[in-house]
């Protein structure tokens, strides 16, 4: 077997082993690569920052535990920014795992919530899972309080001061969804953004962000955090670097390993094709 053949048939476990070693090494000894802020992340930040005091933000936590590594830091940073601001917000979810994910971060930020002076029910509220996908999104937009009767803890929405004047999507100053897929961006675009003209921001997985770019460039999505890289940028923007920012060096190292193996695979493929042609002739 020639060396080219050996390279072509390299055991995938060796590739994984190299990846594990490189990622672990960089996590333990970070390089400190710079993280420039992209325009879409800056606009996400600006969308929240520029809201008048007292504005109510609709925050859709539309993901479950499977997407925590990438979307968790976005949610944490968004909550930090909202708790540190003079805005109010309503957390809801079209995903069954959304409320559980929200409670993880609300518990994590307990100290910040206490120090910010925000009161549950007056400044923020957590709603339960709303089943029905697009139908639920449409119902929420048209008749918010009749779609969801209680908050996550069982209190009637009629007894929650923050929801007193919330009847339709128009009563929110901004809609944010941090989403892992469907239901998510396209459902909100169809049922909230297009009919009610609400400003819309998105926190998306790296794998879905390219699919949402047409909506971002058209202006239907105002600001967007794209994957863990975007989350790291956002953490830096709010001045609170956390898990996403600390994983950026390892992510870059992992990307380099991936690119090297893609290049190597292609080079070996071309060389083998060339050598086979030579043998034939």
């Amino acid at each position, binding site marked *: 077997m020639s060396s080219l053949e050996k390279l072509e048939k390299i055991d995938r476990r060796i590739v994984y082993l190299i990846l594990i070693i490189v990622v672990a090494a960089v*996590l333990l000894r970070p390089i400190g690569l710079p993280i420039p802020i992209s325009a879409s992340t800056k606009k996400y930040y600006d969308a929240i920052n520029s809201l008048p005091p007292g504005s109510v933000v609709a925050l859709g936590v539309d993901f479950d535990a499977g997407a925590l590594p990438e979307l968790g830091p976005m949610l944490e940073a968004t909550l930090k920014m909202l708790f540190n601001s003079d805005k109010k917000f309503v957390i809801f979810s079209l995903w069954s795992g959304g409320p559980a994910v929200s409670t993880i971060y609300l518990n994590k930020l307990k100290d910040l919530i206490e120090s910010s002076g925000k009161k549950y029910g007056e400044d923020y509220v957590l709603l339960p*899972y709303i089943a029905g996908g697009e139908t639920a999104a449409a119902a929420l937009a048209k008749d918010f309080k009749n779609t969801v009767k209680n908050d996550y803890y069982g209190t009637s929405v009629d007894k929650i001061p923050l929801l007193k004047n919330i009847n339709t999507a128009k009563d929110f100053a901004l809609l944010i969804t941090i989403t892992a897929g469907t239901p998510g961006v396209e459902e909100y675009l169809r049922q909230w953004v297009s009919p009610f003209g609400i400003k819309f921001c998105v926190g998306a997985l790296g794998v879905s962000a390219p699919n949402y770019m047409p909506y971002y460039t058209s202006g239907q999505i105002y600001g967007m955090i794209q994957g863990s890289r975007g989350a790291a940028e956002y953490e830096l923007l709010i001045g609170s670097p956390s898990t996403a920012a600390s994983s950026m060096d390892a992510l870059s190292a992992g990307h380099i390993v991936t690119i090297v193996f893609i290049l190597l695979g292609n080079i070996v493929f071309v060389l083998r094709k060339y050598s086979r042609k030579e043998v034939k002739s």
Partner: protein
Amino acid sequence: MAISTDPSVWVAALLTIMAYTIIYKDNPLYKLAEHILVGLSAGYLFIQTWKMIYKSSIVPLFNGSGILFGGITIVLGVLLFTKFSKRYGWLSNISIAVLVGTATGLTVRGYLFAQLIDQVKASIKVVGNLPPLDMFNAILSLIMVVCTLSYFLFTFEQKGALGWLAKFGRYTMMAAFGAAYGGTVMTRLTIFIQRMQYLLFTWLGLA
């Protein structure tokens, strides 16, 4: 180095390692982790959905606040289960018709405005007072949209000018697929890095 003494951290760490043993080869430890995940997810989804249905349909039915709405939804829901009967299976078509009709009605209207008209408007916004780079982007987007659409024009043979347009359209799609692949790599790597952070820092305490 201070290894965690929290049992929940140990469970999470061991399950992570069990899941990653698939890298070596398929094995019972991986299968166990996989089945735990699937079982927990299914159970969780069932309970959350049941809670939602209970509060929105069943409670109003019995306390009199929504007899009509609650009754109709429960009847439609129950009818779905007639699918298992050969004799009464046709009854489930009523529920399916309501589901499909509602979803289509909701989606089509929104789709027309949000995903067709607004997208077409965005594709032809070349004229206007855009900064030079945005202008370049807008023109490039328009060219790419036209070329990609021409790739799917099968009424005429794709040769000559149309052939060139279609070829550029193919490159455009390849670039889009490349971007999607890059995003996929980033997502998978992020999950892997997060689990590595958990194992190295939260479990093993290698700060």
